[in-house]
């Protein structure tokens, strides 16, 4: 029942071990150089932007400020990391990636803003995207907040419904008999296919979106919850019964906690589905949100805005994922070491 987070941790551990092996043999000079190079690569990108003449009409200030900020961050990281050997090792380990990132950004800028080689409007330069983010900051922020509101409301209701339904199906024979086939059958249909129906059922596009996300989240969570409850060892129920437990105790203190790992794997599956449902439903029906923003920008052929909103989406959804993993690790702390 190991979720992606667990796997992630595992691979992190192995790369860390490999990295520490690799760093052990390096001289101090070599180590210092390795951690300094990201500063130079982002500095180079900044210098390029500042010195070379451009061939595209672009607001350059936001991009330059961003590069300056990154350069400063990498520069400050060196003395900060020096205080702990773990951080120092991490700084060295991450270094090649950031060096490459800096060089790539410089190259990208060169090919777009400076030399105008890549076709516009489909491949805007980094400067243009950064410029658009600042220029359109207010709309982007509102769109993000709108999407988050839709996601959080839909997700919470959907998870709750899914857990309740899953517990009923997992615990009561009759609920299982009548509802499980339905869940199994309808569970394979992507919620986005229900957009036309949702729009008829619910007049407001916001609540239609909520309904779709609720459906998208509810099915996998209900499915995994009921499976999880069925999978709880019978001996735990027997132990609880000999301790004087009533049915309420058996459900809430044995069945549900025992099913928690499965519930979280359902929630994890549901997260990905809910992102897709959110974006598609916003693209089709809504008048706000990041999905709507992408579609709107596309309508104006403003691909810089499309990329800007995709980047913001990536950041936002990553944060949502991280929050869910944090909650899972807290709830399942009893499981640590047991799984993996």
């Amino acid at each position, binding site marked *: 029942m190991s979720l992606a987070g667990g796997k992630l941790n595992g691979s992190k551990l192995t790369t860390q071990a490999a990295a520490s092996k690799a760093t052990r043999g390096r001289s101090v000079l070599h180590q210092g150089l390795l951690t300094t190079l990201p500063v130079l690569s982002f500095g180079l990108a900044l210098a390029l932007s500042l010195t070379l003449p451009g061939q595209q009409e672009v607001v350059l200030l936001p991009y330059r400020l961003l590069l300056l900020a990154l350069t400063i961050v990498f520069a400050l990281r060196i003395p900060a990391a020096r205080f702990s050997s773990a951080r120092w090792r991490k700084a060295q380990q991450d270094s090649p990636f950031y060096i490459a990132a800096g060089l790539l950004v410089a190259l990208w800028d060169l090919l777009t803003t400076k030399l105008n080689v890549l076709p516009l409007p489909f491949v805007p330069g980094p400067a243009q995207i950064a410029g658009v983010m600042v220029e359109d900051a207010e709309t982007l922020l509102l769109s993000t907040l709108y999407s988050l509101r839709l996601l959080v409301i839909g997700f919470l209701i959907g998870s709750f419904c899914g857990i309740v339904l899953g517990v009923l199906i997992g615990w009561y024979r009759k609920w299982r008999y009548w509802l499980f086939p339905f869940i199994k059958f309808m569970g394979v249909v992507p919620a986005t296919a229900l957009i036309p129906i949702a729009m008829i059922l619910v007049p407001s596009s916001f609540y239609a979106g909520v309904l779709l996300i609720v459906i998208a989240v509810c099915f996998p969570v209900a499915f995994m919850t009921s499976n999880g409850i069925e999978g709880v060892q019978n001996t735990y129920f*027997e*132990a609880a019964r*000999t*301790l*004087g437990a009533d049915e309420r105790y058996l459900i809430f203190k044995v069945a549900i*906690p025992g099913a928690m790992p499965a519930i979280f794997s359902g929630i994890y599956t549901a997260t990905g589905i809910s992102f897709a449902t959110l974006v598609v439903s916003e693209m089709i029906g809504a008048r706000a949100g990041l999905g709507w923003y992408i579609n709107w920008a596309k309508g104006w052929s403003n691909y810089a805005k499309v990329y800007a909103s995709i980047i913001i989406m990536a950041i936002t959804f990553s944060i949502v994922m991280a929050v869910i993993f944090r909650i899972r690790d807290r709830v399942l702390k009893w499981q640590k070491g047991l799984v993996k």
Partner: protein
Amino acid sequence: MMGNPVEKITGAVSIRGVGRVYADSAGNPMEALRDVHLDIAPGSFVSFIGPSGCGKTTLMRLIAGLDETASGEITLDGKVIDGTHYERGYVFQQANLFPWMSIRQNIAAGLKARKVYRDCRDKPDEYLRMVGLEDFGRMYPHQVSGGMAQRASLARALINEPKVLMLDEPLGALDAFTRMNLQDELLRLWQLRGTTMILVTHDVDEAIYLSDRIIVMSARPGSIKEIVDIDMEHPRDRSAPEFIRLRSRILEMLHFAGTSRSLEYYL
């Protein structure tokens, strides 16, 4: 702490003509128990010993109310047993602690299940101390050793102050040293509490070391073959002549009880 346990008037188990038939994996009926009669005195320590399939665990589950009797009846202090009740505690072979609860929460589970925790919040700590786990209350079951888990399991069952405690091979999965340690622990708790103890074991020495009476069972159908009373003082010396004599006597019975299996099978 020598001699007999505290006099107790409660915890008398009476088994009257109990039988039970199972369907085996092929669907054929298998007689797990046939016409078992037995009276267990309140506050006594009784062990069931016998080959696999002799119905000793079946009988324990019937007393606990985890399964239903097919024929006959079992009473506790005159009341017919129907379903589980906290008066009849059960310690499982694997400690069977709830992995999502800390050791202390596991021990407190019985109080919470009975909704009396609010009136005795300090009781779990008392029981943690009783089994020597006061420093491990916050740990989760997977973080403690098998012996500690089984101690916690004992405390979890005892916190409800059951009249009868069933011990279903509770020490079977432990190493020899931990095992002997926990045997003394069991003895101490029994003498302290005067709870009627019913133990299922494969270990003849364990049965002789702990019990007032040993019920030797035979298989197919599961039934009582012989009852051995033990009058040795506690703590018992495993190398005393009487101990050794009892051991060979019971081993002989077991060898005879199982039809074709070798002696080592029961050790």
